[in-house]
Structure formats: structure tokens, C-alpha cells
């Protein structure tokens, strides 16, 4: 917008509007902007639902609420979805803070999950007390391995990490497909049924509780790690400016590789929780796109683990609510994805208005239009 006019005209004419960087925003203002964006997004998505179904939008919202809070089972299952998404979001955060675009979480989670499933299938008859720590270690190592290859290449040769990690996702997905056909049960079904061996124990009959507790702990640890540890500081500096980091004696290569190890390891943990804790099986859809959604969650929460819980809740709430709407209104099951997409567009877009403000053209620039626009512009100036 601002670029357009400068080249085209030689006469001194200001563009119609002008974008400036904001500073000195009051602390509550960013939240107000985000709330407005979410509200707008909800209005647009309820309009869309209205057009497609012709039902009262308020009914839709109650159906949406039903999806997450309808019963204790649903609530718990919502919390467990939330925990997994949050765990993966935590995993990608240190990498993002370092400006290392790890979009390979999906693959790292699957690598961890695959390793867990392999243990569960191959270690028949082992005592559970031995199996669980062993599975955890194997899963974490597998996740870390999936992350470290792109990290090493980035550190030594500057290989584009976005593209590398992206490709690693599909290598992992295909490997899972391969092992699913190898281990399929019953033969010829194309999937692995429930694996009885090596499940995380259920508390009070609910298998979701342990994963939820583990992730809650991880949130706190990650918050401390990023905010108060030396590693967190180094990550921050490398993210802000690699040259500064080098100047103050931080070994950038070392930090990149170490941070990606952490990132991949937590993804592996998420895979372990998914396979041993909640799903008790593995398929190429085990991560179910959470590896990608987590990237948006982490970024939208500005890499703060506590806000991440809120953002992740919003997304899980929406997709479960959308699923509920789709079932009750007999819409296609892809409906929630459209809703999530719309809401994300609004939240992504609103970040702009937090960092920049749009000013209308200044009075003296175009004298002919002053009379007509005077009222509106005065208002603008006063604000």
C-alpha cells in the first residue's frame, strides 16, 4: 500500500492511508484487539453455518459448547486433545524463538509414536514397570533424531530448515504406513488394532489423566526453561540476532543443535503419550495435523507457554464444537476445518493491528479533498 504511490508519481502526493509502527500500546489493548478479531471470526463463521444449514446461529453455539462440555467424558477427552496439542506446541516453541522454523513436528511426533508402538508390539510379556521408562526413552530419542538431521544441516551448511523439516514429515508418515502394513492386525485390514501390551495405566478408569498431568508439568518446566535458564537466554539472543550471539561468545551451531534436540525430544514425548497413553494404536493420522496446528498455536501465543494453553484451548474448542455441529446438523465431517481456517485468518490478520496503525491521509497533502474529508479526518487526528 505505502509502496504503491512513491514510484508512480513524481508530484508530492501522499497515499490515501499510511501505515506506521505502533508503540506505547496500553497493556490491555492487544487483548482487546484479539477479542474483537475472535468475535468477528465467530460472526463470520456463524453466518457461514447459517447459509449452509439455515438453522438459528445461537443453536449452533450451544451445540458448539456441547462438544467440549456436554459431559464429563467429553470434557476429559477435550482436555486430553488439548494436552497433546499443547505438548507439541511447547515442543516447537524453543525452536521458533530461535527463528528456526521447525515445521516438522508432525513427523517428529510420528517418529516418537512409531518407536513406542514398536516397543508395545515387540516386547510381549515384559513387566510394565520396565516397559514404560524404556518406551519413553526410545520415543524421545526417535523424536530427537528426526529433529537433529535438519538442525545439523542448518548449523553447518545453512540448509533451509523449513523445507527440510517439512520433507521429514512425509518420510515419517510413509514409514508409519509401511509399518502399519507390516504389523496390521487383523491381516489385510490395513490398520493396527488396539495394542493391549504396554499401555500407560488409567487412573480411576480414565486413561486420559496421566497425559494431562504430564503435559501440565511440561508447561511449567518449559516456562521456566525459556524465561529463567541460561539456555533460554541463549535461544533468545540467537533468535534476535545471530551476529550479536556470536559477538558475545555464544556458540550458535551448538545452540541450534541443542535446541532442536529439545524440540524433537518433546515431540517424541507427545508421540509416546498419544500411542501409549490415549490412542493405544498407531496410524498415519495419529498426529492428525496437530503438528501443523501446534505451529500456529505457538506463534499466536507469542511463544509464551501460558498463553499457549489458552490458544490451544480455543482451537480444540472450535474443532470439537465444529465436529458437534457437523454431527447434529448432518454436515460433512470436514466442516470444523473450514471454521478453524476462518478463525485463524482473523487471528493472524489482527496481529497487524497490534503492531501497526493505519492513518488516513494528512490534511495538507490534497487540498481539494480537505473540505469533503474534514470531518472524518479531524476525528482521526484527535484519536
Amino acid at each position, binding site marked *: 500500500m505505502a509502496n*504503491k504511490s512513491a514510484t508512480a508519481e513524481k508530484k508530492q502526493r501522499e497515499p490515501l492511508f499510511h501505515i506506521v*509502527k505502533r508503540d506505547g500500546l496500553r497493556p490491555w489493548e492487544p487483548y482487546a484487539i484479539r477479542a474483537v478479531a475472535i468475535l468477528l471470526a465467530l460472526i463470520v463463521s456463524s453466518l457461514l453455518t447459517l447459509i449452509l444449514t439455515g438453522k438459528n446461529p445461537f443453536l449452533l453455539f450451544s451445540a458448539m459448547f456441547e462438544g467440549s462440555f456436554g459431559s464429563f467424558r467429553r470434557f476429559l477427552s477435550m482436555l486430553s486433545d488439548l494436552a497433546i496439542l499443547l505438548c507439541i506446541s511447547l515442543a516447537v516453541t524453543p525452536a521458533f524463538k530461535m527463528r528456526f522454523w521447525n515445521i516438522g513436528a508432525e513427523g517428529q511426533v510420528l517418529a516418537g509414536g512409531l518407536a513406542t508402538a514398536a516397543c508395545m508390539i515387540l516386547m510381549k510379556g515384559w513387566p510394565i514397570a520396565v516397559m514404560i521408562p524404556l518406551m519413553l526413552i526410545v520415543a524421545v530419542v526417535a523424536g530427537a533424531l528426526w529433529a537433529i538431521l535438519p538442525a545439523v544441516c542448518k548449523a553447518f551448511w545453512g540448509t533451509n530448515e523449513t523445507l527440510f523439516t517439512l520433507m521429514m514429515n512425509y518420510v515419517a*508418515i510413509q514409514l508409519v504406513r509401511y509399518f502399519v502394513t507390516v504389523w496390521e492386525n487383523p491381516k489385510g485390514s490395513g490398520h493396527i488394532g488396539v495394542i493391549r501390551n504396554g499401555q500407560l495405566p488409567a487412573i480411576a478408569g480414565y486413561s486420559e489423566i496421566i497425559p494431562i498431568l504430564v503435559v501440565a508439568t511440561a508447561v511449567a518446566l518449559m516456562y521456566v526453561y525459556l524465561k529463567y535458564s541460561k539456555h533460554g537466554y541463549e535461544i533468545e539472543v540467537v533468535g534476535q540476532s545471530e551476529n550479536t550471539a556470536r559477538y558475545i561468545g555464544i556458540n550458535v551451531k551448538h545452540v541450534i543443535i541443542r535446541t532442536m534436540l529439545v524440540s524433537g525430544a518433546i515431540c517424541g514425548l507427545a508421540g509416546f503419550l498419544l500411542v501409549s497413553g490415549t490412542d493405544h494404536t498407531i496410524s498415519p493420522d495419529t498426529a492428525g495435523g496437530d503438528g501443523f496446528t501446534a505451529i*500456529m498455536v505457538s506463534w499466536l501465543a507469542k511463544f509464551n507457554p501460558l498463553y499457549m494453553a489458552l490458544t490451544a484451548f480455543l482451537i480444540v474448542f472450535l474443532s470439537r464444537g465444529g465436529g458437534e455441529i457437523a454431527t447434529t446438523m448432518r454436515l460433512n465431517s470436514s466442516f470444523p476445518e*473450514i471454521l478453524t481456517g476462518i478463525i485463524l485468518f482473523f487471528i493472524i490478520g489482527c496481529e497487524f493491528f497490534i503492531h501497526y496503525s493505519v492513518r488516513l491521509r494528512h490534511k495538507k497533502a490534497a487540498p481539494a479533498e480537505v473540505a469533503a474529508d474534514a470531518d472524518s479526518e479531524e476525528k482521526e487526528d484527535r484519536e
Partner: protein
Amino acid sequence: MSFLANFIQRAMVQGIPLLFGSTGEILTEKSGNLNLGIPGIMYVGGISGVMGAFYYEQSLSSPEAMSGFLAILIPLLSALLGAGLVSLIYAFLTITLRANQNVTGLAITTFGVGFGNFFGGSLAKLAGSETASLSVVETSRYFKASIVGSDSGFFGQVFLSYGFLAYVAILIAVVVTVLLRRTRLGLHLRAVGENPATADAAGINVGAYKYGATVLGGAVAGLGGLYYVMDYMGGIWSNNGFGDRGWLAIALVIFALWNPSYGILGSFIFGGLYILPVIIPGLSRSMVEFFATFPYLVTIAVLVVTSMRKKRETQPPASLGLSYFREER
């Protein structure tokens, strides 16, 4: 001999959607925008084309009344428009609102895949038609129609047996290569992708170039979705049928070293790798899945080797993935 011809022909058919996708993405990336929404945009292109064709077929009293010209034009324009509009959302968010490109792209993919599967699964019901599944077989005949002489031996099968969109894909790839390499427009576009601040100082309208390349690139990628449904699938939409081809198209961009004419060869190689496990006799189902990792592994190898060699011509555009704000220097 006929085995070879058959292999080449099937590899080409598999490669064409990837070629559309990667040509579109190269155009976009040359402006410095890493559009990870391409998989979603290709879905939208496919479903928009099918929707256009579906409503056209519905509006006719009998299949005989169909005009060949409209049967091709309507889906083609719908696909271009649908994919173009979704790319415009991406362009608006990343260029005007300077949002993070990775995050926006992934959101576009979530949206686009959902959009495709939603309308693919429920359009027939929403339109109140009796048929449960969404199919536009009649229209597809026009897309599949091949040049006369396609059944005359090796040459015919290898070069003449495709629907017209396949030739369009190759033509677009060649045109984009010439455009990027040999024209002032292409020079300016590359300048914007390498260093927008310098381009801006030289008087190039950075925003306009970015918008143009992103929307046009998205529209071209959308044709890949259209080719897939209309030609390869014979006009029958199946949910998630397009699979991970969108990501393969992005892989192909790297494999082709950001040069669309290498993309033609690359799409053929990827297509070959895609069908190789199916064609090799006696391969078990699990090995088929194992072989499917090859295109990705090859891409990773290319990515690593080019970054090690650091040849200027084969690097990603320098400002790839970064938003540009003139007042931030």
C-alpha cells in the same frame, strides 16, 4: 516396448498435477513468499472446477445439450478463480498485513483441504440432487479428450495420449521460465524476492509484484487440482483423494532448483517414483509404502547438497519467508 511406453505415459500423468503446483509455487517463491498453502489451494482449485462443472451439468436438460466449449471454459475459470481467491487471502495476510508466512500458509492449507472435502462430500446433497456422490463424468470427457493418433504406437502413446491440460502445464512451465529469465518483468520479480529493500529503492513496486506473483502462482497451482479430478480421476471427486501431492509439489520446487523447466523433468521423475512400486511386479503392499518415501528422500538430498555447494544460481530466493516493511531497515 509397450511396457516402457505405458510406464512413461503413467509417470507423466502422475507428474502433471505436481508440475502445475510447483510452477505456481516457484512463481510465488520468486517474489519471496513461501506459500505453504499450496496443498490447500490445489484442493480448492480442484473442487471449484468440479463445482462449476456440476452446476453447469445440473442446468442442462440432457447431456447431449452440453457445449464442449462451455464444458471446458466453466470449470477452468472456476478453478482459476477459486484458487486465485484463496491465494489472495494469503497475499493479503502476508503482504498487506505482514503476517508470518509459514503460519498463514498452514492455515490456508487447513482451510483449503477442509473446503475441498466439505463441498466434495456435501455439494450434491446441498444442491438437492439425487446422486449421493459428486461426479461430473460428462464434463470430464472433454478434459480427457486427446489428440488424434494417440493410439498409433509408441510415439502416440508417449506424446499424444494426454488431455489438453497436460500440454498446458508444460507450456506454462516453459513460459514462466522464459518470463523469469529473459524479461524485465522477471528480473524485477527476482529482485523483489532476493532483496525487496533494494528493489524498492530501484523504483520497483514491491507490493504489486508480490501480489501478482502470489495470486497468479496460486491460480496456476489450482489447475493442478483441476487436472487431477477432471482428467486423472475421470471427473469423480473422492475426499482426500488428492493426498499429499500438494506437499510433493513443494518438494518438486526444491528438486527443480527454482527453475520451472527443470520442473518438467522433475515432475516426470517424481511421477515415475510415484508409480514405480505399483508397476514393479510382485512387490508386497508394505514395500509399496516404503518406496513412497523416495521422492521426499531425494528432495532432502538435493536440498542438502545444494546448500553445501552454495552455488548462487541454485539457492532459494534470499528473502524467502520474510515480510517486507519499507520503514524497517
